[in-house]
């Protein structure tokens, strides 16, 4: 009974994911659900960095780009197995994150924003320019992801793959927050100096969470590339980074449920806005501003406070 209660959120999410296919009328809706799941996983990782550790990253799409292009380039040009390529991409993204992390995390606030933004833009420009391997601005095809003779095909199969990944990430993120590591992260968001005084090695934790979120972003970049079967430099550009940060902030910083809600809403938004014909950017920008002005802490924490009474603890 206790176990059931402890895992209630996880079971609820599993039930939603299981029942969702019953109401998805066709592949178009499957596609949206898949994109929501991909974004949700990335945003869970990014929220650990921004929400819990309080470190902004405006260049996360760069890591997604590394993963996506590793999965495109290594099998196509060098004959690697896609799974190996995916791991290599994630390792590469983690390595880049690790190299820049130490100097970057001496910085704070706007300087940190600038450094991560610069890193992301540099990665995007490299992808755009190295056309021999990346196909330049036109992008390139990505081979199917498979093991032995079986390969993942079609929206329905991909849906179950991503449902599984999302459940795992949700479980992992919740566990991480309740671990000593998670407590250290929250402490350093509260007050860096205080946590340092209490013996938390703040730089080590910031670096660790940055590398972890880069690793996940790269993996999901690979998954996105294999799912769509084609990749363009847009996946790594500044606007994509902003979209992801927006999902974190609109859903609610330092809120696991917020990450899910933010990803779901902002993935659906462009679809909903396509009826506005040409006004999408204006409406999207206005919604961003309104959300942030009237709910600066994000949807989930604000609503939880208003209606939940006892509030949401994570």
């Amino acid at each position, binding site marked *: 009974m206790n176990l059931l209660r402890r895992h209630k959120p996880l079971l609820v999410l599993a039930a939603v994911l299981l029942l969702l296919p019953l109401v998805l009328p066709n592949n178009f809706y499957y596609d949206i659900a898949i994109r929501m799941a991909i974004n949700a996983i990335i945003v869970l990782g990014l929220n650990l960095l*921004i929400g819990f550790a309080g470190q*902004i990253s*405006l260049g996360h799409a760069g890591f997604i780009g590394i993963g996506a292009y590793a999965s495109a380039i290594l099998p196509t040009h060098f004959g690697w197995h896609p799974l190996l390529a995916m791991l290599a991409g994630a390792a590469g993204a983690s390595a880049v994150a690790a190299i*820049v992390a130490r*100097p*970057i995390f*001496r*910085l704070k*606030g*706007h*300087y940190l*924003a*600038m*450094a991560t*933004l*610069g*890193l992301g*833009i*540099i990665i995007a*420009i*490299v992808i755009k*320019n190295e056309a021999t391997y990346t196909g330049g601005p036109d992008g390139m095809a990505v081979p199917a992801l498979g093991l032995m003779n079986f390969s993942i095909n079609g929206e329905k199969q991909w849906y179950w793959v991503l449902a599984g990944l999302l459940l795992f990430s949700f479980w992992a993120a919740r566990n991480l927050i309740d671990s000593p590591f998670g407590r250290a992260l929250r402490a350093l968001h509260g*007050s860096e*100096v*205080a946590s340092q005084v209490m013996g938390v090695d703040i730089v080590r934790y910031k670096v660790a969470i940055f590398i972890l979120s880069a690793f996940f972003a790269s993996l999901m970049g690979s998954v996105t590339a294999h799912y769509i079967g084609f990749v363009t430099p847009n996946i790594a550009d*500044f606007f994509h980074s*902003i979209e992801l*940060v*927006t999902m974190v*902030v609109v859903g609610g*910083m330092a809120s696991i449920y917020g990450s899910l809600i933010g990803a779901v809403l902002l993935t659906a938004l462009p679809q909903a806005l396509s009826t506005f014909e*040409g*006004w*999408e*950017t*204006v409406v*999207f*920008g*206005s*919604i*961003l*501003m309104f959300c*942030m*002005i*009237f709910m*600066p802490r994000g949807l989930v924490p604000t609503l939880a406070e208003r209606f939940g009474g006892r509030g949401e603890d994570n």
Partner: protein
Amino acid sequence: MSQFLQFLFSGITVGATYALAALGFTLIYNASNVINFAQGEFIMLGGMLVFYFLQAGLPMPLAILLAIAIPAVVGVLLEKFTIEPARDADVVTLIIITIGASLVIRGLIQIWLGKGTHSYPAFSGSEPFLIGGATLLPQSLWVLGITALVVVALWYFFSRTLAGKAILATSCNPLAAQLVGINTQWVLLVSFALSAALGALGGVLLTPITLTSYDVGIMLGLKGFVAVVVGGLGSGLGAVVGGLLVGIIEAMAAGYISSAYKDAVPFILILVILFFLPRGIFGAKITERV
């Protein structure tokens, strides 16, 4: 040598625009601690509005005046309706608000004036001067001359006038400024108006050389932000030096190394600088108080 001069000329010209954008960032940052990611859109507005008003048949001076005045009004509206209601929000939240604003401005211009690339004639002909084997466009002299004038005017404003000193006082300590009777509300509005006008002026001056379209604001704004950080956040002198430095290094790298990587240069520069001088070249040393 002539090649070097050529790159230097084009670097200083673009750098002057970055400097104007950087001064805009600095003004707003000092008055409100906000980094305004919509700063680049003011540069775009400047160029696009001059183009529009010239098409509508207005004489050049009037078109320029309107193209600077309208963004200033937009800046005031931005402060009044988006920054002010969210005064105490997080850095990330404020950044997202200004990004939202920049999307709205860019989207409206795209609907109104289309996706095309536009330009208009230079202010005083396009017959280039020959200096040491390199060519210098008359428009570059306009850019440099007016930027220099603006810098001197700003210096005078901030060090010799009561209004300027009130703004400086507010940026040092808003509460203390309020206590000695400075209307800090007004300071914020003036800072946003001035900052938008500076950005727009940069766009007005640069467009005959580099062309403009609804989406040029992002890159120009980001490079202006790089210039700010290179010089050190909050320092006016730093903003100007940073802008010129970013422009020159970008032009040199484009000329001597690779023009394909031109846009990456400012960002590589900023990473290198932040690694070795975390507070920029002219940034103040700050000790955090708990």
